[in-house]
């Protein structure tokens, strides 16, 4: 076979001048000339004057094409010219034969932005999904298309569009596909996102769905629902902390309207701080974190508050066993601006006072409550500009006043966040969001008796500025880039005390300051129908700055013997790192795909947690001259497959994760060992690693929906200064984790929900034997292994039923009945040892198990008008 003469030469003859046509014209002319239909994706056409790149394989194809078609040599020359012509490349910036359709997708009834709606062209299935502000942009060659917008639970819309000389703006208001409109068949919906995206380990949850699931004491809890997903383990009953793929609770970035929430728990974690009535979207990323997120090793939980209905005023609320809620929303100016205010408060304290508790009871004099306040306003300044202001304020307050002495304790703690955001559309393809964010978490403990009083406090404060660009040059690329700068103020652990007018000297209040900056670039590149690459890089800089005093502690007495002083602004220790992130998808066919990802993350701030349960006393500390940033590397591989027209979504993911420079307190550390010093003097450092497989089976459509998740995993840690340097399993190493979540829509009135969880028991360190020293010390022996005892497995089933009362005019209401722990399983919360001495000198040690919650029924009434 004669090989085609395909030498590329530069000649002055310009093809582009003659062919004032789009690539389509070229494509069709080639097709006409050669009887070969060139696959569209073989060309990456950016300009009217046609600039093409060919993958080597395609080049061969083309060779053959030219050879086989015996094209005129003149055409071949011309064709080859533009392949090399630099002017062709330049002209990319001049004219274009592609145009952009862009706009927003909102919910018709409320005007809320819809995140993750699929927007695509029916003809070629090219498209995108809306970003968190409901914005989309599609740039394609000119032509006539049908633009489709689809979002699960909403009625899809289709509009014919013609892209010719100008870019067009097209916004959509989607109507909810409620039960009444169920017969509407939704066609052509692009519901295979889980298969087709490069995303791994990402889950989006709808608040409406969460609300139909059983809730502990009727309190709808986002964090508890997150823990039902594979790869996410609960830290245990009465704990909002969660563990993602073997990482600690501090390795989860929890964002509420982009503001960091440092302690997402109320009442030691029995409830989470997120009021479901104020929340619009929840996205959990547990696998490959895209480059626009950073600062944590394990996961990102991105929670977006509702924007408020810009169509009409509305009120919704509820009364439950624990708290009551009230939300008011409405337009400030219809279609242009809206507000929402949402509040929640517990009322347990009302029952803990007189006359419910007798004055001799231990409960008398105690007062506990928490509350949350969410508020948000948004303005559509123009078609191109939107402004959002949002805030959250929540507090836990515990007061104790002894009934028989004048001893008092007051423990308030909580978060406050404020976010101001400005969306700007520079260009139909370039979307900008700039945010100014403030966040604060503080804990304090005030106690006193007569003249004497003391205060213990800790906290963290962030001032954050963030700019994120999204550039959608064409349907193949989604480019994100931006920067983020945070100024942290840490108050690790401080105490002050006074008696009358005398202040005790407990040392100066210690604060730590740090600059935390990042720039990133990420591109989601759809190479062809088979391959999709998502790659990015994040450059991070962390610099702890003065004023700061490093206390060099006496090793015996733990009192400072020497101090190194850093002046204000002086760098204590700076870290700079490059964090690459990659993910790829290979479509096996239109219902199944293989995905792989690799990511590196650095974490510069750490939560020093003693007990493993998230207590409000846990303190955040920065990376410093003593504490290195945590470093995580994660490899993951997944197989995704949808069945029966996307009715079922299934996936299997395996992962291996390595975590370096992990932090633990040194052995035998007690919280009282250190006040007003450098907490990090008591840390020891080591590494951890985790691997496992996650199986997920979800039924996305129908009357019965829900999922089954199963995780098998191993997590290990190794610290030179812990457990004699031997490898050990951390407390929350879970071999098996199963969750079953079901909701069933019986009819327009009744919805039923059920969840069942099973988890391998937590690990504890229990003594195996004791011995006596001649000085009278009784010493315990742990058999040389930290966490040598596994508690019994945890399992529990909850059920719920929601009854919607017939709508009366605009007033809607429902009753939610939940039963927590249906089969009344006594799950272990703590096992402790009770030592009994009898007069004959006998010592008896008995293990006792405390279980927190037996079967607990609850009723919640919700209303909306």
């Amino acid at each position, binding site marked *: 076979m004669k090989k085609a003469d395909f030498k590329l030469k530069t000649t002055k003859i310009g093809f582009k001048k003659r062919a004032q046509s789009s690539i389509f014209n070229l494509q069709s002319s080639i097709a006409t000339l050669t009887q070969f239909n060139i696959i569209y994706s073989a060309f990456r056409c950016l300009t009217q004057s046609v600039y093409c790149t060919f993958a080597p394989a395609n080049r061969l194809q083309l060779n053959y094409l030219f050879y086989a078609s015996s094209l005129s040599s003149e055409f071949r020359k011309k064709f080859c010219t533009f392949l090399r012509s630099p002017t062709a490349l330049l002209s990319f910036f001049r004219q274009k034969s592609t145009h952009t359709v862009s706009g927003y997708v909102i919910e018709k009834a409320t005007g809320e932005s819809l995140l993750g709606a699929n927007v695509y062209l029916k003809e070629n299935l090219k498209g995108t999904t809306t970003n968190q502000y409901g914005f989309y942009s599609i740039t394609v060659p000119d032509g006539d298309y049908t633009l489709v917008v689809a979002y699960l639970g909403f009625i899809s819309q289709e509009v014919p569009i013609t892209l010719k000389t100008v870019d067009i703006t097209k916004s959509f208001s989607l109507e909810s596909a409620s039960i009444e409109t169920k017969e509407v068949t939704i066609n052509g919906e692009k519901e295979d996102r889980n298969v087709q995206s490069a995303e791994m380990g990402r889950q989006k949850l709808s608040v409406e769905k969460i609300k139909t699931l059983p809730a502990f004491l009727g309190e709808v809890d986002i964090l508890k629902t997150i823990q039902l997903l594979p790869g996410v383990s609960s830290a245990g009953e009465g704990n909002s902390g969660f563990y993602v793929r073997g990482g600690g609770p501090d390795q989860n970035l929890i964002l509420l309207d982009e503001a960091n929430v440092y302690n997402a728990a109320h009442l030691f974690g029995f409830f989470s701080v997120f009021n479901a009535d104020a929340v619009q979207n929840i996205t959990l990323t547990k696998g490959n974190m895209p480059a626009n997120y950073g600062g944590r090793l394990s996961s990102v939980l991105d929670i977006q508050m509702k924007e408020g209905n810009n169509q009409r005023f509305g009120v919704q609320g509820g009364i439950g066993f624990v708290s009551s809620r009230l939300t008011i929303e409405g337009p400030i100016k219809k279609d242009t601006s809206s507000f929402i205010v949402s509040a929640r408060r517990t009322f347990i304290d009302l029952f803990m006072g007189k006359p419910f508790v007798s004055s001799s009871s231990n409960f008398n004099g105690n007062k506990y409550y928490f509350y949350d306040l969410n508020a948000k306003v948004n303005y559509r300044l123009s078609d191109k500009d939107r402004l959002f202001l949002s805030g959250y304020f929540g507090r836990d307050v515990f007061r104790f006043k002894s009934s028989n002495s004048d001893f008092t304790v007051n423990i308030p703690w909580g978060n406050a966040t404020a976010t101001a955001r400005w969306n700007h559309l520079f260009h139909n393809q370039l979307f900008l969001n700039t945010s100014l964010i403030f966040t604060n978490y503080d804990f304090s403990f005030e106690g006193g008796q007569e003249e004497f009083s003391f205060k213990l406090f800790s906290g963290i404060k962030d001032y954050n500025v963030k700019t994120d660009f999204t550039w959608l040059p064409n349907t193949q690329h989604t480019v994100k880039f931006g920067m983020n700068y945070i100024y942290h103020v840490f108050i690790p652990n401080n105490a002050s005390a006074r008696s009358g007018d005398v202040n005790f000297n407990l040392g100066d209040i210690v604060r730590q300051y740090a600059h935390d900056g990042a720039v990133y670039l990420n591109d989601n590149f759809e190479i062809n129908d088979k391959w999709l690459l998502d790659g990015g890089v994040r450059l991070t800089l962390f610099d702890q700055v003065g004023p700061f005093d490093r206390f060099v502690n006496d090793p015996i007495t733990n009192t400072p*013997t020497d101090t190194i002083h850093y002046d204000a602004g002086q760098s204590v220790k700076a870290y700079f790192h490059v964090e690459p992130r990659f993910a790829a998808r290979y479509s096996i066919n239109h219902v199944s795909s293989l995905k792989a990802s690799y990511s590196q993350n650095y974490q510069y701030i750490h939560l020093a947690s003693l007990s493993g349960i998230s207590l409000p006393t846990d303190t955040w500390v920065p990376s410093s001259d003593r504490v290195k940033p945590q470093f995580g590397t994660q490899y993951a591989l997944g197989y995704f497959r949808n069945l029966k027209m996307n009715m079922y979504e299934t996936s299997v993911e395996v992962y291996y994760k390595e975590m370096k420079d992990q932090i633990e307190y040194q052995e*035998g550390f007690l919280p009282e060992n250190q006040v007003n010093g450098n907490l990090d003097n008591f840390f020891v450092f080591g590494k951890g690693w985790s691997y496992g497989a996650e199986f997920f089976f979800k039924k996305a459509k129908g009357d019965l929906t829900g999922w089954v998740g199963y995780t098998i995993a191993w997590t290990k840690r190794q610290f030179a200064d812990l457990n004699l340097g031997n490898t050990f399993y951390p407390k929350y190493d879970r071999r098996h984790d199963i969750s079953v979540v079901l909701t069933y829509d019986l009819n327009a009135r009744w919805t039923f929900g059920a969840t069942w969880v099973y988890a391998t028991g937590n690990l504890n360190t229990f003594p195996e034997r004791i011995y006596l020293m001649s000085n009278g010390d009784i010493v315990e022996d*742990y058999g040389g292994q930290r966490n040598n005892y596994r508690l019994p497995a945890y399992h529990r089933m909850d059920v719920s039923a929601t009854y919607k009362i017939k709508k009366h005019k605009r007033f809607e209401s429902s009753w939610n009945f939940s039963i927590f722990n249906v089969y009344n399983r006594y799950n272990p919360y703590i096992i402790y040892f009770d030592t009994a001495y009898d007069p*004959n000198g006998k010592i008896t040690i008995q293990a006792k198990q405390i279980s927190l919650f037996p079967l607990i029924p609850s009723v919640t009434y919700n209303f909306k008008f």
Partner: protein
Amino acid sequence: MKKNVLKYILTFAAITALFTACEKNVTVEVPEAKPLIVVEGVIETGQHPLILLTSSLPFFGEISTSQILANSIQGATVVINDGTISDTLQQIPGFGVYTSTIITGEVGKTYKLTVTANGQTVTSSTSILPAIPLDSLWFKVDGNKDSLGFAWAHLTDPDTLGNCYRWVAQRINHYTYGPDSGKIKDSTFISPVGGSVFEDRYINGRSFDISFPRGAFSFSTKEDDENEEKFHFKKGDTIVVKFSAIDRGCFDFWRTEESQVSSNGNPFGSPQPVHSNITGGLGVWGGYSPSFDTIIAQ
């Protein structure tokens, strides 16, 4: 005060748990805890070795005083090898204490210990290092407490990293007050509260002052361990300080042992396993290179 804070936090946690908590006795199936040989052995410069052997007890179940007494190991084979001679120790009748008249502790020597009893054999090794005496020792009143204070010392740590020390003290004067009037204040050397051992990891090659409070035996009910004299020496006390250079294995044992005993039972603390230098068993085999100082507190 700090302890109190913790207590209130605990109370708070307990109150919270009490809302709905239920409690029951459970059997914890920890791995079969076979009794292990516990060694508490000492070899000191110029002294014969002294080794106490006991058996460990299971953590759960009943322990009686008689059991504790019957717990010492009788008839064990205890051999010490100093590199040249192998010496089999003799049991002092009664308790499980073993000693020898042949081997005497010498600076620079390493002593290998082999104990065979109850079908188990445990081994260990310790060295007697050169003594590093304190430069000076004095008593200083604690703040505004007019007659109570701590023992202070000045130490110059040698330039080589890795030195470990143990401080124990004994009041050899007699009580002239209180219920124990007439009796010697301390019957033996006692570790100070907060720990008796330290190393030069952070103080290598430095010359510095260091203070030690007075220690007490576990479960001591003596009056001066409960009133304001607790942790303090008193003016008029004759204090003998035994300050020893010890090897790493001995240091690790006492550091972790004292840390565990002081943090025990605190659910907010992290577990503290004791690092033993006895292979196959528990306890410590320690070589001491002591120097003694005596001061009268005034």
